[in-house]
């Protein structure tokens, strides 16, 4: 087992977020330690992306506390999160289509002399970065608009690694990727853990989650619905927590049988 430090690098305590009439997050707790991969799972609309955006400062929280290395911090804008050392790969990628790959990789984080861009250093670093991810991209100087969905996704992932983040958040990073690229991303997640980064991984693919995550946090309808150690929890239990059946497979089966019977009764009538 990987050594995990005592103080979590990032902790959410009772976080709530509301969009108009939608209560997207209610009293959510989450802890991530350095050198740990936490998978965040839940049905569509469970609030996973919203949680990610509260951490990365896109949507400031309404209630609760975000703690960084044990200290409460305010994360009101993306810049705050970046300063702390949070790098995020958003589900919608958040790339600028008109800029080339290099410009996108370093956006907001440019290498420069004074305020003059150092294009050569950026291009060099971009190539190294993309090579370590074994990415096939026609050229680092073509606009991102000219890339395929998978290539764009890999660019977005590479972008999270440009600085030296302490926490890396990946919101469904493998959704548009093929088999080989998915394996690369999972390898990357493991490498990040080995280097002592904390990783939050959102995925719908249970096999991926079980392959790389240490713990799985389940969100359901914007609330916590259990945190499980991957090593001693079965697939079914996690699925049950996601779908909202009570916390083990047996009760879930029972629940299904009873609903089935009520349905058949209803039909009989």
């Amino acid at each position, binding site marked *: 087992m990987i050594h995990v430090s005592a103080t979590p690098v990032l902790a959410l305590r009772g976080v709530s977020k509301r969009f108009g009439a939608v209560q997207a997050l209610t009293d959510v707790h989450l802890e991530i330690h350095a050198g740990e991969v936490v998978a965040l799972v839940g049905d569509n609309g469970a609030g996973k992306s919203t949680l990610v955006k509260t951490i*990365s400062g*896109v949507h400031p929280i309404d209630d609760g506390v975000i703690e960084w290395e044990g200290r409460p911090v305010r994360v009101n*804008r*993306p*810049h705050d999160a*970046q300063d702390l050392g949070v790098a*995020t790969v*958003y589900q919608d990628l*958040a*790339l*600028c*289509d*008109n*800029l*080339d790959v290099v*410009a996108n990789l370093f*956006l*907001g*984080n*440019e290498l*420069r002399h004074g*305020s*003059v*861009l150092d294009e*050569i*250093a950026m*291009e*060099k670093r971009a*190539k*190294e970065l*993309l*090579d*370590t991810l*074994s*990415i*096939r*991209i*026609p*050229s680092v*100087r*073509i*606009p991102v*608009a*000219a890339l395929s969905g998978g290539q764009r996704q890999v660019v977005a992932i590479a972008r999270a690694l440009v600085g030296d983040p302490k926490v890396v958040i990946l919101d469904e990073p493998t959704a548009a990727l093929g088999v080989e690229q998915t394996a690369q991303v999972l390898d990357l997640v493991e490498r990040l853990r080995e280097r002592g980064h904390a990783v939050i991984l959102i995925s719908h693919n249970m096999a991926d989650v079980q392959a790389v995550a240490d713990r799985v946090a389940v969100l359901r309808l914007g609330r916590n619905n259990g945190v499980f150690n991957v090593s001693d929890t079965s697939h079914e239990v996690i699925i049950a927590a996601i779908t909202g059946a009570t916390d083990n497979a047996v009760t879930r089966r029972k629940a299904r049988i009873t609903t089935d019977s009520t349905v058949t009764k209803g039909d009989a009538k």
Partner: protein
Amino acid sequence: MSDLAKNSGTDLKKDAATTGTTDAAATTGTTDAPEAVAATKAPVDTGAAPVPAVDPRLLVRQEGLKGYWTEFKRKIRGGELGSLPVIVGLIIIAVVFQAQNDKFLSASSLTNIAVFTSGLGIMAVGIVFVLLLGEIDLSVGSVAGMGAAVWAVLNVSNGWGDWTSVLVAILCGLVIGALHGFFFAKIGVPAFVVTLAGFLGWSGLQIWLMGNEGSINAPTGGVVENLTGYFFEDKAAAYGLAVVAILAYAGSLLLDTKRRKAAALPARPLSEILLRTGVVAVLVLAAAYVLNELEGSRGLPLALVLFLAVLVIADFVARRTTFGRQVFAVGGNAEAARRAGISVDRIRITVFAISGMLAAFGGLFIASLSGGATKNLGSGNTLMLVIAAAVIGGTSLFGGRGKVWSALLGMLVLQSIQQGLNLLGMASEIQFMITGAVLLAAVVIDSVSRRTQKTAGRA
């Protein structure tokens, strides 16, 4: 073009390796081919990379002139027209008007075009920045008028110093622009509406400032009169500036290539540098010759020097600085820019401030040309010309795509047409119709090339 050019070294090898065909242009002929290979070998040899990240399906340019030609044809088909329609347009304009009236290419006519291009061109540079953001500034004409009125009232009516009043006028434009930016960025009023309000409001203030006087004449020999009235009559000025420009251009290309080679990145081949420098040299020297040598030439206009200075600085800011990068990012995808930690509001306010500042500066040029500030300076078709120039020059109305130099190209087109029509004695209503048609044509080209680029996967 340069994106692909930078790759030209890599594909040389790849061509030979994957297709096996031996293209004459690819393997022979150019003297610099070995250098290009050497430059790109390095990353493969030294890099710890498991797989070199080059897609074998990539379309890349072959070495030599044939490569340029194939790439050029592909770009045209892909809708990447660049400056081509404008340059073709300028040539057509020159040929047509010269055929109608042989004074069109005379010294006084060309000098007129250069001087009239300068003031409005400076305003168009500001508009280019605003268009890059994907916004519009409808107030530039009124702000120009305000700037001129402020200068005239301070300098002439109140006896302030030349430089102080000019600076205060430009500063006024800056503050007005920042105010527009504030309402747009912080309050969230659409830029179109804010600047429309500005369009009315500032021209009202301009008229109020001018008070009872319909116009205030520019003092002879003053700074503002000299803006468009001063010419460097010494021939050394135009030629010297031309040579400096050529050397600076070639130098920056060579320096870039040297740095890229040192960093083991694909670099421009020497043939391309020579070709580019050659084209620039011909254009610049031709312009200097026209300004110096034609019958009745007055030399290099100060106005043109100032305009070129604004262009060079603005182009540097747009392409080489973090600020410029952020402007493009906000214009391309404002939410992505925000999430990248860019202060979108700050960028927006700054861009509108730049637009206001350059509008006021341009207003002083207009005042200089018309002999002083007037109540209706900057009204009429000023706004239309300025926006049209940026768009005709190739800056997209849809944000995130464009070049600062489009201000020069577009304004040259418009002023050449005006000058030509003036020489033919055409009435201003005809001029309006023709300018309108040119603008429409430019926007059509923009929209169509954008659509073609989309299907060609480039937008």
